[in-house]
């Protein structure tokens, strides 16, 4: 077809709908000028289609290009080549191309760009929903390509569009097995070069600062933080402390991490300690946009770019912008940092001057009572029980001396209040302490073998350093509200359901059916991310070695090519077979009979019909005349009588009888013509 040929009108509808669907998921990230550009371009193109507007002139096109170019430079130029900038550039390119899309060539370019935009969508989300959504768009792009290539007379109208869609669906379905083979077998390689990552996405989950009220805010979120699958048995809930960050710096209200201390841990003696079995599990983490991971106590993860720092925090070199799967071995019994360095000790005793005098006072009083650090810490924890303290999601707001106010006046708080206060008191009493933020507990999914950790599992607790024991976990919440630890945060939330009236979550918890659906969907999502999203180099190797066998790995390319060729030939044979013209069984029977005399004196004359043939034969052989005439009548009836249904029982029966007769006749006629031939030979 000619490249410069104009576009069939219906192709435009396909392209426009593809563009709209492609832009929708990016809408929230698009700057306002780009949204306006999209509206203008799509409307204008629609008006051109309707014949109410003309194509933009050269001046308008150049002007628009310059305007969009400078706008994107202003918007994204400062930060170098960011992924947002590239995606937005791609979108604006597509939009501008829409306006000057006159010829087949232009629409081909737009269709190609559309595939690149599809890929860009996956940078932001790889969930099942977005996978299906993008599959739908791919289907529409294929339809638009088909509509371009059909003959103009056949390209318009609703039926034609449905046929385009069906053809696209057929191609897609046939391409699916090919895709699967390639997906499984084509070797995955690690990134070739560093690429810009999405940046302006707000982070979710636990942050690197802890202010009173922050975690209780998070506790209202029902989003998943990560999913866990244990290799062996699932540990009891009170062991499920998912450590995130250790916060060492306190300025009076906010606990934050000391960024100066971040660096890979040197002593990894726990790894050589073979005396204990590590707890093994794998985590699929939702994108948090943060650069640390969660794990139980002292973890070991072998993943490029991940390291364990001095505070047993797992750091990643790049923020988690995609679902990330990592396998962890946790050493739960190994004490770490039995010796505390001078600098580390100073850091974990640091307190701001002249704040919370009453808490300091209390701490020094208790210090005098208990000489032993352990006993002192236990006394501090018991104090939360013996005095009247309340564990609540809605604590009152606190002022400058927050810890004093909480400890002596309001006495109501969530985990971060207790953890903050305890760490403060421990430090004031001279015991090195730090606040740890992360998640606690998990909910098992009954439909699959994994646990879900929600944002409402967010938790804060304390680690204190004891002579000879190293860093030990102290959780005031476990003392005060043990049901939260044992039964999970959900219980607590249910008790506070009234305070959560607005959240759909409160209703959800009390509807078993909805709950079941939610869990079922989540198990699907989990399977999806475990099998599909996190199919990487290592998983691929493991999978292929299991299926193909380690010894036969070098045959893999051959196997792949063979499978692809096999599938393509299946498509060829399938459609050729399907397109084979089915002949009437009666005609088949007749032709069989007549053709069996080919090359003999009884041969069918060119262009001779069945009736003529049978009667000619009958006239020539008085012996079989009756049988031949009977067959001719029978054939006539079957062929022409009031359109017999070929599947009807009587038709089948008659057909069977007829072919029996013909077989017999053939046997009787063939010796006779041999004689004839012998006679003619004389």
């Amino acid at each position: 077809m000619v490249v410069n040929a104009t576009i069939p009108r219906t192709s435009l509808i396909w392209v426009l709908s593809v563009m709209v669907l492609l832009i929708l998921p990016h809408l929230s990230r698009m700057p306002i000028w780009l949204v306006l550009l999209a509206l203008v371009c799509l409307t204008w193109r629609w008006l051109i289609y309707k014949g109410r507007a003309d194509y933009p002139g050269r001046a308008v096109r150049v002007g628009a290009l310059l305007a969009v170019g400078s706008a994107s430079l202003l918007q994204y130029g400062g930060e170098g080549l960011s992924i947002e900038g590239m995606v937005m550039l791609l979108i604006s390119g597509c939009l501008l191309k829409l306006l000057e899309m006159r010829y087949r060539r232009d629409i081909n370019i737009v269709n190609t760009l559309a595939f690149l935009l599809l890929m860009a969508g996956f940078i932001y989300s790889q969930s099942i929903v977005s996978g299906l959504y993008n599959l739908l768009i791919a289907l529409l792009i294929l339809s638009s390509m088909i509509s371009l290539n059909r003959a103009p007379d056949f390209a318009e109208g609703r039926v034609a569009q449905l046929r385009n869609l069906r053809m696209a669906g057929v191609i897609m379905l046939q391409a699916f097995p090919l895709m699967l083979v390639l997906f499984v077998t084509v070797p995955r390689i690690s990134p070739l070069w560093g690429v810009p990552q999405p940046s302006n996405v707000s982070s979710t989950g636990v942050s690197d600062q802890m202010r009173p009220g922050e975690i209780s805010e998070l506790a209202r979120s029902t989003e998943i933080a990560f999913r866990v699958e244990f290799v062996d048995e699932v540990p009891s809930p009170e062991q499920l402390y998912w450590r995130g960050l250790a916060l060492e710096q306190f300025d009076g209200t906010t606990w934050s991490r000391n960024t100066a201390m971040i660096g890979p841990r040197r002593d990894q003696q726990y790894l050589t300690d073979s005396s204990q079995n590590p707890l093994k599990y794998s985590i699929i983490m939702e994108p948090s946009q943060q650069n640390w991971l969660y794990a139980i106590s002292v973890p070991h993860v072998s993943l490029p770019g991940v390291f364990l720092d001095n505070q047993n925090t797992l750091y990643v070199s790049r923020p988690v912008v995609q679902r990330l799967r990592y396998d962890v071995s946790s050493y739960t019994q190994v004490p770490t940092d039995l010796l505390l360095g001078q600098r580390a000790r100073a850091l974990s005793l640091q307190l701001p001057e002249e704040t919370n005098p009453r808490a300091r006072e209390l701490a020094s009083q208790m210090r005098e009572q208990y000489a032993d650090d352990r006993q002192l810490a236990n006394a501090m924890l018991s104090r939360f029980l013996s005095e009247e303290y309340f564990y609540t999601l809605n604590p009152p707001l606190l002022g400058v001396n927050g810890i004093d106010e909480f400890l002596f006046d309001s006495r109501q708080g969530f985990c971060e209040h207790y953890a903050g206060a305890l760490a403060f008191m421990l430090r004031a009493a001279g015991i090195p302490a730090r606040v740890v933020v992360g998640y606690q507990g998990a909910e098992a999914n009954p439909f699959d073998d994994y646990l879900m950790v929600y944002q409402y599992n967010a938790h804060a607790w304390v680690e204190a350093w004891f002579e000879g024991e190293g860093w030990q976990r102290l959780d005031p919440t476990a003392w005060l509200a043990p049901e939260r630890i044992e039964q999970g945060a959900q219980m607590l939330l249910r008790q506070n359901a009234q305070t959560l009236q607005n959240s759909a979550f409160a209703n959800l918890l009390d509807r078993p059916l909805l709950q079941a659906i939610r869990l079922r969907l989540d198990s699907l999502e989990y399977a999806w991310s475990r099998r599909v999203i996190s199919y990487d180099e290592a998983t691929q190797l493991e999978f292929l070695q299991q299926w193909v066998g380690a010894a036969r790995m070098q045959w893999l390319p051959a196997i792949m090519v063979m499978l692809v060729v096999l599938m393509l030939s299946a498509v060829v044979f399938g459609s050729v077979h399907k397109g084979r013209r089915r002949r009437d069984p009666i005609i088949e029977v007749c032709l069989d009979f007549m053709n069996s005399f080919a090359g003999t004196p009884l041969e069918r004359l060119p262009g001779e019909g069945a009736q003529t043939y049978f009667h000619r034969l009958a006239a020539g052989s008085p012996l079989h005349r009756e049988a031949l005439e009977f067959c001719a009548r029978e054939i006539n009836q079957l062929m022409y009588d009031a359109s017999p249904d070929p599947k009807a029982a009587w038709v089948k029966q008659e057909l069977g009888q007829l072919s029996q007769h013909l077989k017999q006749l053939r046997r009787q006629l063939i010796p006779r013509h041999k004689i004839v031939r012998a006679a003619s030979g004389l």
Partner: protein
Amino acid sequence: MDTQYRRRFRSQIKQPLDRWHLNWLARRAPAASQVSLGGRTIYMLPTAQGWLFVASSVVVFVAAINYALSLAFALSFLMTGVFLLTLVHTFLNLQGISLQASRAEACFAGENAVFRISVSRQDNRIREAIEVSAPVTGAAIQIKQHGQLANLTHAAADEVFLAIKTSVRGHFKAPRLRVKTVYPLGLWEAWSRPDLDMHCLVYPQPRVCDLPSSAGAGNSTDNLAFVPGTEDFYGLRPYQPGDSHRQIAWKVLARGQGLKTKQFVDPCDVSLMLDWAQFSGLALENRLSCLCYQVVQLSARDIEFGLRLPGQEFLPGRGDEHRRTLLEALALWS
């Protein structure tokens, strides 16, 4: 300069290549009046759009590696799968169709010879957007002809009319056809170059000249004959449907003698012979062109005439058959 290089390129590289290609095709796909397209005679290559598609699939693949995006890998492989599959679909769109050309009407040099080509299928598979064209290779001026599209959706046969410009008189052998399709996705082009053995006769290009005057050959009245015309009243004959109303003898009708038609005749020289020697000053082709013009003109007036060529003589006659015989003789005279 540029045109000189182009000319040299054409004469030294392109034309020998084209010739070689056509010879190769002639061995591989000999001329036949009916041709079925099969695997041996169908050739395939990706189109420009196909290459673009592959390129974007590679871009998606590289992005998938760099961003470690499983679904982008899947998309890239889906595109690869679609690309490979369209190879099959485009091939199947052409495979198994039959082409047959019907003999074209003779035409005059410089006119288009119009061939009717029927495209049909023996199976029930739908074929769409099959473009049939007749590229003229080797000619000094490449005539790009837009093909016509055949569609075999519901019907098992379709027709395509091809007009091919002729330039010289004689037997015209149509060039090899080019049958191609890019359906369904436009990523692959499948084509075939069947030779349907399409011939037609091309008469010389008529060249305007004086008609031989009927007086020219002599004035004796016994040589005069009459041919139906408009000049002299000749007689009446019974009316036949289709006769002009102006020629109806209304007076005769008024007399009650029935519907009659008036007949007129033109006087004409019985022994009117068109002669080769008549145009002695002209080049051979021009002589034939002039004779051709005269044959056409005289036939249109239904005048009886004959033709004398060196070594050939056609007795006077009239009618379509006579005209065809003479024109054929002129077309094939050598």
